[in-house]
């Protein structure tokens, strides 16, 4: 497969993986937790580097998952101790992120990990970092990681489909009929953390936040059905990746930044023209009603 296709495939995988887990957060009104986690994951990655002295996949995955869950946990504990939730999120993620950035500056030039990388990722280098087994190359590591996380996410969603659906739409009712709401919550957090980690290294914090929040929001403007919502989020994520890549190549700019901008563009289209919930479409309908009566 060619260089370009690997990059587009990586972008699309990030789009589906983050899009699908992000829309579940959106339904629970927890999008800003996604923003927080995708920043704090940096600390997990840097921490894993300090412990293992390498930039290997597994320690990084573990470190980031731990910090991701810690973020969710600290935000909730602060919130429960009486701090309003927006401030709780703000304090936790800025602290963790600042610590991560400061620690990175101690690493220096010896390894390929810097603040710019953390924000923008290195998706252009994805095709070069391939999985090597017995001297044979089996495609980029990033694609493998994202693929595995995607399959894991899909399995979890399929296995807990009903529980997730009920507990996102009506948590009180879910608790009443005996759905393990807390378990489902942390399962979701785990999914988001894993998706973030798998994406973070190749696409950076910006695009992870964008892909977690924006495609889900776009899909939410287009449909009311749970299953359609999940699928649409993934599809919007894929389209954003493809459009963004095209724009980035055309203008020779940051791929991650362009993909993030593309998610915004698609959101704007849905915001204005969605048949059901679009702003302009609603106006047109009102106009017609007024004219008819």
């Amino acid at each position: 497969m060619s260089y370009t296709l690997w990059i587009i495939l990586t972008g699309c995988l990030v789009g589906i993986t983050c899009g699908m887990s992000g829309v579940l957060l959106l339904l629970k009104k927890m999008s800003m937790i996604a923003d927080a986690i995708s920043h704090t994951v940096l600390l997990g990655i840097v921490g894993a580097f300090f412990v293992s002295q390498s930039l290997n996949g597994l320690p990084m995955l573990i470190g980031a998952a731990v910090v991701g869950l810690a973020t969710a946990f600290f935000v909730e504990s602060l919130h429960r101790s009486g701090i309003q939730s927006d401030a709780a999120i703000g304090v936790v993620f800025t602290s963790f992120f600042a610590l991560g950035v400061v620690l990175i500056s101690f690493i220096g030039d010896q390894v390929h990990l810097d603040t710019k990388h953390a924000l923008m990722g290195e998706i252009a280098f994805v095709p070069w970092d391939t999985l090597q087994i017995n001297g044979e190359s089996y495609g980029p590591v990033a694609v493998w990681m994202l693929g595995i996380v995607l399959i894991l996410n899909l399995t979890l969603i399929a296995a807990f489909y009903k529980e997730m659906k009920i507990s996102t739409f009506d948590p009180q009712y879910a608790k009443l009929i005996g759905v393990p709401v807390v378990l489902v919550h942390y399962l979701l957090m785990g999914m988001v953390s894993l998706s973030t980690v798998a994406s973070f290294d190749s696409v950076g914090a910006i695009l992870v936040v964008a892909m977690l929040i924006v495609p889900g929001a776009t899909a939410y403007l287009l449909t009311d059905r749970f299953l359609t919502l999940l699928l649409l989020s993934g599809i919007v994520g894929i389209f954003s990746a493809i459009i963004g890549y095209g724009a980035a190549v055309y203008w020779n700019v940051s791929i991650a930044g362009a993909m993030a901008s593309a998610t915004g563009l698609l959101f704007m289209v849905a915001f204005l023209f969605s048949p059901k919930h679009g702003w302009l479409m609603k106006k047109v309908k009102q106009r017609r009603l007024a004219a008819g009566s």
Partner: protein
Amino acid sequence: MMDFFSVFGFDANTEWVLTGSLLLGFASGTIGSFVLLKKQSLISDAMAHATLPGVCLVYILFQVKSIPLFLIGAALTGLLATQAIQLIINRSRIKTDAAIGITISVFFGFGIVLLTYIQQHFGGSKAGLDTFIFGQAASLVKSDVQVITIGSLILTLIAALFFKEFKTVVFDPSFAKGIGLPVRLLDGLLFSLVLLVVVIGIQMVGVVLIAALLITPPLAARYWTEQLGVMAFLGGSFGAVSGISGAVLSTTIDHLPTGPMMVLSASSIFFLSFLFGSKKGMFTRMVKQL
């Protein structure tokens, strides 16, 4: 003030930087108290992230490195971002937190696009726009710091002058309207203060973390007092301490980014307040329960 710093053997430029960081910290801590009470902490974060495309657009349009122009561009896109959030909340079924998340990621992503565009087409290393992301106190020249210093002083002064009015508007808007206060005007003024403190702070602290200086110090102050006046002053003082210690550490130790160091200082103050705060601190509450 200047003589005080020279005791530690800093040169004149560093003295300016330290004064600037002190006053910027104080201004953001004070103004942040109102942001906290209005529950707009994350909106201010979106505003801060959204200043990046503004700075870049100005550079693309005029191709000069001019701080006043940068600040105008930053203020414009920062303002646009808050308008976008309001529009999304009011005109669609998307809720506040998602609206903020969308705005943060899309504006910042677009900012990065413009930043790389500048690097490709104008040789952006000359422009030094990279420093706007995490802030770099060491790269500031005297005129930059003067903007920060004087700006922070003016903002703090306005916050102090209108303190009573702001307090009434934030706590009880309908009462404020009843006694004839121009509520919308005051709201607008308060919003402008937040926007301006973000805008003048991005060069030193960076767009990614400047909001933390608005959020964390006042939140730490909440653990020591329940009065808004004391909270604003204490928040300001915490901000000032965070600002100056961050600036000192990042200028004396090589390669340490300024913004993150300031935020870490603020986080440490928050953590200590969370544990030992005289009003709501964890240990205080435990002792009271005994």
